[in-house]
């Protein structure tokens, strides 16, 4: 037992020594008593997400925390994720084969008859790094601030955050206030499409490739766009009794700039339901969201019940409810089991439409992105964890996620009545985490 522990310390110790030389060693005073490797904690995880016939993703996280003293810590995190597969482009299903132009303008793809069009333009790897510093301030408060950076080949996201937490009533009550500012910029291959412009599809009408390119470029506006986000978070955490803790948060978010998904279109259909053209979508250039979140954790003998509820409302007229329940069950030999269930429901954005009728006036904003539609979703999962002989924690989790779209329209024009307009979403994900 003792020998194994020593081994573990050496590995952690080597990492700690290297890191300390980077961060500067300011703890000479207690160098005689304390083994510095014990100040380091590492958390890692990997997740595989797979949708039936559509997108699959792989995401890996590695996080290192150095805690010099209580609430005096530095955290560094790196996330790498890779996405492949196809997702709905917003174009409507049709009785015949359809052809679409890729967002880059280079190449096309076809969709089978009676299938919901999926754009399989390859979306590649993303790398994200975060740093967060936390330290006590004044007598009963803790301040924390950090930076975030995320990069994909056509997308860059940068953010800073800061928050203060005040403790009251012998730390039974904590009030926290946080702020975050982000700037994202987007540089898609092929340029940013002009909203409402019609997708140019080469069905043989162009004499040469140059003619097609000219027509394509007419649908393109700027080469890059950006957006800015402000987030404010306020919360109270309250110990209720020896076995119960609760949290209540309010958050306010304001994002402005380019909010469209440049890869998504809306189909304009005639009274028979046949698509005449596909228009690039247009969303408002501002979105304000507010959410109210409540969570309670209660200790029962040998288990912990965790329930949370979140209500979100925004100025796009989307309202959502999220209920999440987890039950942590302690088993023998430092093992545990945690079943999880999550229920989610959202209403559609005011400008969401699965397609646009030919005779309708083109609205100010329109999107057929199902993420803005009306649907409910259910997640069920089971997590199993255990502590290894060397005192490290490992867990494996398997979950199933399903979305069911609600059809709020009483009928559809012509052929669309007999076709499946709304895509199903069925996915599973498997996660492995290791803390040491």
């Amino acid at each position, binding site marked *: 037992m003792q020998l194994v522990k020593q081994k573990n310390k050496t590995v952690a110790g080597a990492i700690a020594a290297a890191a300390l030389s980077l961060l500067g060693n300011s*703890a000479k*005073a*207690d160098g*005689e*008593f*304390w083994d510095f490797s*014990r100040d380091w904690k590492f958390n890692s995880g990997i997740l595989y997400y797979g949708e039936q016939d559509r997108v699959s993703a792989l995401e890996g996280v590695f996080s290192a925390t150095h805690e*010099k*003293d*209580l609430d005096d810590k530095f955290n560094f995190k790196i996330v790498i994720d890779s996405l492949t597969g196809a997702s709905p482009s917003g174009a409507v299903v049709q009785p015949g084969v359809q052809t679409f132009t890729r967002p880059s303008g280079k190449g096309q793809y076809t969709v089978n008859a009676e299938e919901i069009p999926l754009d399989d333009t390859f979306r590649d790897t993303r790398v994200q790094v975060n740093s967060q510093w936390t330290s006590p301030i004044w007598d009963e408060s803790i301040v924390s601030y950090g930076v975030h950076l995320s990069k994909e080949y056509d997308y860059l996201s940068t953010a800073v955050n800061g928050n203060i937490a005040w403790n009251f009533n*012998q*730390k039974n009550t904590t009030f926290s206030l946080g702020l975050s500012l982000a700037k994202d910029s987007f540089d898609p291959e092929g340029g940013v499409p002009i909203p409402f412009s019609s997708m140019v599809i080469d069905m043989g009408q162009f004499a040469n490739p140059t003619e097609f390119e000219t027509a394509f470029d007419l649908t393109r506006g700027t080469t890059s766009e950006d957006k800015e986000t402000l987030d404010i978070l306020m919360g109270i955490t309250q110990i209720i009794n020896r076995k119960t803790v609760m949290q209540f948060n309010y958050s306010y978010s304001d994002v402005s700039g380019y909010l469209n998904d440049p890869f998504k279109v809306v189909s304009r259909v005639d009274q028979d339901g046949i698509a005449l053209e596909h228009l690039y979508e247009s969303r408002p250039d501002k979105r304000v969201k507010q959410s109210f979140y409540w969570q309670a954790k209660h200790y029962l003998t040998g288990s912990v019940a965790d329930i949370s509820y979140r209500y979100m409302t925004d100025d796009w007229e989307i309202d959502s409810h999220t209920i999440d329940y987890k039950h942590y069950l302690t088993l023998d030999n430092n093992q545990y089991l945690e079943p999880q269930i999550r229920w989610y429901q959202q209403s559609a954005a005011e400008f969401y439409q699965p397609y646009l009728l030919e005779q309708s006036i083109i609205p100010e904003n329109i999107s057929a992105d199902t993420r803005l539609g009306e649907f409910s979703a259910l997640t069920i999962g089971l997590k199993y964890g255990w502590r290894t002989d060397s005192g490290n924690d490992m867990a494996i989790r398997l979950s199933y996620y399903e979305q069911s779209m609600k059809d709020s329209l009483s009928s559809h024009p012509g052929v669309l009545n007999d076709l499946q307009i709304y895509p199903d979403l069925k996915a599973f994900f498997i996660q492995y985490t290791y803390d040491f």
Partner: protein
Amino acid sequence: MFVKNIQLLKAITFALGVIMITNFYASAAFANSSAKQKLQKRLSDYQGQVIYIDFWASWCKPCRKSFPWMNSLKTRFYDQGLRILAVNLDKDQVLAKEFIKNNPALFDIIFDTQGEIASEFKLEGMPMSFVLDRNGSVVASHVGFNSKKITDYEAEIVEALNQRELAND
């Protein structure tokens, strides 16, 4: 049985008479607790010494750092008259013993599972320590254990060690 209790009470009162603890007031329940009795015994054993009382629990993260430091205190200051008493507040002694296995202690541990001593000392936070001078008065206390404040903590102890015990008349 009754006679025994009176004798025990006399012994405790004598110890109390010598020890003047500012935050410690006698209550009816006092005499019936074994944790408090154990504390009393130690306090009377260490009469005339400087006593460092530390309240800890296995679930208290900063306590993992305070233990090696308290071991070092014992090594360095025992001969000058420092005595360390660590009062454990775990509800389950098994957890406390597990902690001690991973964080060895060279000093005395008293188990106070009901938190009676903690209540008497009106603990404001975890961990919390008190320095009692040679006359038994609380001359310093601090909440929490911060490695940056180790020099301050030690200064308080050294100051108490340097003071001579007042003569009992």
